[in-house]
């Protein structure tokens, strides 16, 4: 199949075809991954109902804003590379990485340590640490992926015509942000605080 496409449309046509297939594969992966997060969200409402864990509200807003801002810079990084602006790509992806690490430090480094309950404190502990842990692990893998993109970008691996990896990294990063769009209100805002 690949040889037929190359013969008919040249190397560029083959690259486009592969990108299209890769894109479909990436989205299938994201759909399957979203089932895990969906299950965690259902678990949260099943176990806690309209009650929520006692969490640091200002910190929740700050980490949410940080992740949201990281998506903004990721979008700029992707757009820059799509138009061959390597310098813009590198600076924006570095900002995304820094914000991703800040988010992790906020959730795992601060919220986990200061939460007035532990992972073994019943349903709220299990729900909170499982949801933030699974999400945090995705943020961590996203940061690793973005670091790979950054170093490849520095070596000039990507161009305006060939930057599928950048698009994939961006879509994955935004997916992580998308999950937090639902997790943030579910954990921090919806319901009344569980009395200690």
């Amino acid at each position, binding site marked *: 199949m690949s040889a037929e496409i190359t013969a008919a449309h040249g190397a560029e046509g083959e690259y486009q075809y592969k990108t299209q297939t890769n894109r479909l594969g990436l989205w299938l992966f994201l759909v399957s991954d979203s089932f895990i997060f969906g299950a965690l969200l259902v678990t949260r409402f099943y176990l806690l109902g309209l009650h929520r864990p006692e969490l640091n509200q200002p910190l929740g807003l700050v980490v949410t*804003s940080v992740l949201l801002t990281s*998506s903004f810079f990721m979008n*700029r990084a992707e757009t820059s590379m799509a138009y061959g602006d390597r310098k813009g790509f590198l600076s924006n992806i570095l900002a995304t990485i820094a914000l991703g690490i800040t988010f992790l430090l906020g959730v795992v480094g601060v919220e986990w340590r200061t939460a007035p309950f532990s992972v073994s404190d019943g349903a709220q502990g299990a729900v909170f640490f499982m949801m933030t842990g699974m999400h945090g692990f995705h943020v961590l893998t996203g940061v690793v992926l973005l670091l790979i993109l950054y170093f490849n970008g520095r070596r000039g691996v990507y161009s305006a015509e060939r930057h599928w990896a950048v*698009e994939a990294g961006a879509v994955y990063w935004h997916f992580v942000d998308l999950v937090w769009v639902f997790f943030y*209100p579910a954990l921090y805002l919806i319901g009344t605080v569980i009395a200690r």
Partner: protein
Amino acid sequence: MDTKKSQLLRQGLLVFIALAVITGIEYFVGTNGAFLPAMVLMALVKAGLVLWYYMHIRKVFTGGEE
């Protein structure tokens, strides 16, 4: 080409502002009694913006064309 790039960067900024404003409203509503349907609606609008403008979901159906 540069015009198109500037247009896309501007669009990204506008989406970011919209997401930030909704998050602010979400926080306000959430810390003042959290009206559940409003919270769900805001989360869905934010998700739609991210999916459409940042994740370019339409590319899956158009074969890469924006």
